[in-house]
C-alpha cells in the first residue's frame, strides 16, 4: 500500500478511505434494488400485512448504541486512552453479536406467528432484506475482529496509518448501522 501513501494526491480523503465510500455507494444500490422490488411487488396487490416483531426494534437500539461505542473507541484511540479504547472496541463487537442474535430471534418470532419464508412475498422480503443486511453486519464483525487483533496484539501506537484504519472500520460500522435504521423504518412504515 506504500504505492498509495507516498503519492501526490488530489483528494483530501485518503485513497483507501475514499475507496470504502465508493463501495458503500455500491452496497446501497443493492439494497435500493431490494427496496424498489419490494415497492413494485407491493403495488401489484396480493400483499399480506403484518407487524414486525419487537425484536427488530430492540436490535435497532443495540446497533445504534454500538455506533456510539465505536465512535467513542475511535475518540479514545486518538486521545491515547488505551484501556478505554480497547474496552469500547470489545463492547462494539459484543453489541454486534447481540444484534445478530436479536435478528435471529426476530425471524423466529415471525416464524412462530406463521409468517413463513415460503408464504406471501411480504414476509419473504423481510427475511431476505434483513438476512442480507445481517450478512453485511457479519462482514463488519470480521473487520472489527481484525481491529481487535490490532488492538490487542500490536503495541499501542497512534500512527497515521492506524488512525485511518480504525476510521475505516468505524465508517463501515456506522454504515451498516445507518443502513439498518433505513431498512427498519422502511419495512415498518411501508407495509
Amino acid at each position, binding site marked *: *500500500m*506504500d*504505492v*498509495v501513501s*507516498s*503519492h*501526490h*494526491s*488530489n*483528494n483530501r*480523503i485518503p*485513497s*483507501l478511505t*475514499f*475507496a470504502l465510500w*465508493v*463501495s458503500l*455507494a*455500491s*452496497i446501497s*444500490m*443493492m*439494497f*435500493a*434494488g*431490494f427496496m*424498489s*422490488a419490494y415497492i*413494485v*411487488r407491493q403495488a*401489484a396487490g*396480493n400483499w399480506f400485512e403484518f407487524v414486525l416483531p419487537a425484536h427488530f426494534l430492540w436490535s435497532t437500539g443495540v446497533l445504534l448504541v454500538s455506533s456510539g461505542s465505536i465512535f467513542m473507541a475511535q475518540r479514545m484511540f486518538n486521545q491515547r486512552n488505551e484501556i478505554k479504547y480497547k474496552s469500547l472496541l470489545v463492547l462494539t463487537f459484543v453489541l454486534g453479536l447481540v444484534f445478530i442474535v436479536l435478528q435471529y430471534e426476530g425471524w423466529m418470532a415471525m416464524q412462530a406467528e406463521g409468517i413463513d*419464508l*415460503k408464504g*406471501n*412475498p411480504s414476509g*419473504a*422480503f423481510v427475511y*431476505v432484506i434483513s438476512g*442480507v443486511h445481517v450478512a453485511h453486519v457479519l462482514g463488519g464483525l470480521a473487520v472489527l475482529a481484525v481491529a481487535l487483533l490490532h488492538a490487542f496484539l500490536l503495541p499501542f501506537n497512534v500512527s497515521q496509518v492506524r488512525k485511518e484504519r480504525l476510521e475505516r472500520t468505524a465508517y463501515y460500522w456506522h454504515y451498516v448501522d445507518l443502513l439498518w435504521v433505513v431498512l427498519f423504518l422502511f419495512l415498518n412504515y411501508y407495509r
Partner: protein
Amino acid sequence: MANLTDTVHEQDVLIEELGYDDHFHEHHHGDKYQSSFISKYIFSQDHKIIAKQFLITGIFWAVIGSAMSVIFRMQLGFPEESMAWLKPLLGKWITVDDAGMGTLNPEFYYALVTMHGTIIVFFVLTAGLSGTFSNMLIPLQVGARDMASPFLNMLSYWFFFLASVVMFFSLFLNTGPFSGGWVAYPPLSALPEASSGSKAGMTLWTASLVFFVVSVLLGGINYITTVLNLRTKGMSMWRLPLTIWAFFVTAIIALLSFPVLVSAFFLLMFDRGLGTSFYLSEIFIGGQALDHVGGSPILYQHLFWFLGHPEVYIIILPAMGLVSEVLSVQSRKPIFGYKAMVLSILAIAFLSFIVWAHHMFMSGVNPFISNIFVIFTLIIAVPSAVKVFNWIATLYKGNVRLNSPALFAIGFVSMFISGGLTGIFLGNSAIDIQLHDTYFVVAHFHIVMGVAAFFGMFAGIYHWFPKFYGRFMNETLGKIHFWGTLIGAYIIFWPMHYLGMVGIPRRYYSFDTFDAFRDFDGMNKFITIGAIVVFAVQLIFVLNFFYSIWKGRKQTTRNPWGSTTLDWTTPIRPGHGNWPGKIPSVHRWAYDYGKDGKEFISQITPLEEGEKDGGH
C-alpha cells in the same frame, strides 16, 4: 519521425526537472512485487500484468463464445447437413442416427445461444475490454505508480478467473450449461424442473456471475479512486485523455448497476432453492400445480434490465474512449469538441439508468410508462450523435495514418452509426410490436454493441500493443483482419434486419415447421457462411497477437505514434512503478496535435509564455 529520439531525450529531462518526486524508488518494493515467478506473473499486483491477464482470459473466452455462435449458425444455415463431424467435440449433444446423420440436440442449441450471450457480454466485452484497458491505461495516463489498491486489483482479476472456472466447468455438466437465455428470465431460470439446463447449469451460471460482479466491483472501486485520488501534478480532470473519462464513467455506471443485478439474483436463488415466490406464480409443470403463489416474473425483468441497459454502456463507453484517443493520435489532429465528448459521456451515463423498460415494451408494462421510456431512449441518440459527429470531424482534413488501429477506430464509427440508427426504430414502443424478439433486434444490438465494441477493443489492442509487449503486431495481418471483419460483419448482420422485418423470431432452433418463416433458408445460409469466414479471420488476429508477443517487430522508440499522453513517456518496457525516476507533471491538455507548427506537444511540456491551454 527522425526527431522522435531527441524528443525522448528531452522528455527525460522534462520529467527530471519538472516531475514530482514521490520517493517511490527509495522504498524496497522489489520483493513484494517481482521477487518470484508467482508474484510477478501469476498473483501479480502490478496493473500492467493484471491488464494482460484480463486481456488473455478475454481472448480465451472470445474464441469459445464465437465458436459457439458458429455452431448454432450452422444449425440455422444448414439444418439438413449432418453435424456428425462435431461429435468428438460435443459428444452426446450430437445424435447420430443409423444413416450417419448427426443432429444437434435442441436443448444444447439453446445452451449455446445462452452461453454465447453470457460469455461475450460479460467475460469478453466487460472484463476483457474494460478490465484490460482500465487497468493498463488509468495509472499510465493519469501519471500514477499503480492503482489505489493493487491488492484489491489483483483480487478483481482472480474473482474473474474464479467466475471463468465455474462457467467453464458448467459447459461439461451432464445436464448441460444453462439454456434459458443470457437474461435468465424466470420461470425458466427459477425452476430446476423447467429444462435440463435449468438444473445444475443454472446454479453454476448464477454462482459464476456473482463472482463476476465481485470482480467488476473491486475493479471499479479501484478505477474510480485512482482517477480521483492519484492523478499527477497538473493533471486536472479537464486535462484527462478521453480514454480515462470513459473508463471512469464506466466504472461509476458499473458500481451503481451491477449490485442491483445481485439483488435480482439473490431473490432468484431464494425462489430456486428456498421455496419463496418472488418471481413465480401459478405455474403448472407436467399437469402439477407448483405451490409458488403471488410472484411476478416482470419484477425480475425490471431488476435485470436496471443493470442490463447500463451494461450495454459499460461495454460501449470504454470502446468509445479508446476510439476517440486512437482517432485523434492517428489522424494527427486534436479530438474535435473535447468538452462536448466528456459531457456526452456523462449524458449517456445518466440516461442509461432511465431507459431500461424499453427492453420490456411487450411484456405487459403500462403503455403510458412505455411512452416515457420511449422519450428517454430516443434522447440518448443526441449525445451519441454528438460523439459520432466529433469523431468524423476529427478525421476531417486530418493527416490520417491508415494503419490497423486507425482502421478499426474508423470501423467502429461505421458500425456505431449503422447499429445506432436501427436503435431509433426499436426505441419506439409501437414499432416494437412488430420487431420485438425478431432478428431485427439481434442485428441491432450485435452491430451497435457487439461488433462496434469489438472494433474499439481491436483498435485499442493494435494501438497499445507496443505498450503491452514492447513490440508491434503484424500490419498486413492486421489489415486482413480489419477488412475481413468489417465486410464479414455486415454480411452477417445486414440481412438479419430483413429477417426481422418479416417477423422471424430469434432463438428458434429451426424454421421448417413454420409456413411464414421457412422461405428464408438462402439468406440464412448466406449469414452462416459470413459467420464462418469472420470466425476464421478472428483466428488470424489471435495468431498475430500471440506471434507478435514474442516475434513481433521490436519497438525502438518510446513514443512510436507521436502521442501526447503520459503512457508513452515511460521506458519501452516500464517496470514496477511505471517511471524509473520522478513522476512526470502535466502542463497541458491531452490533444495538442499540429499546434504552432509542431507535430505534437507532449502533456509534460510546459506551456510557452502567453500560450493558452487547449480544450477549454
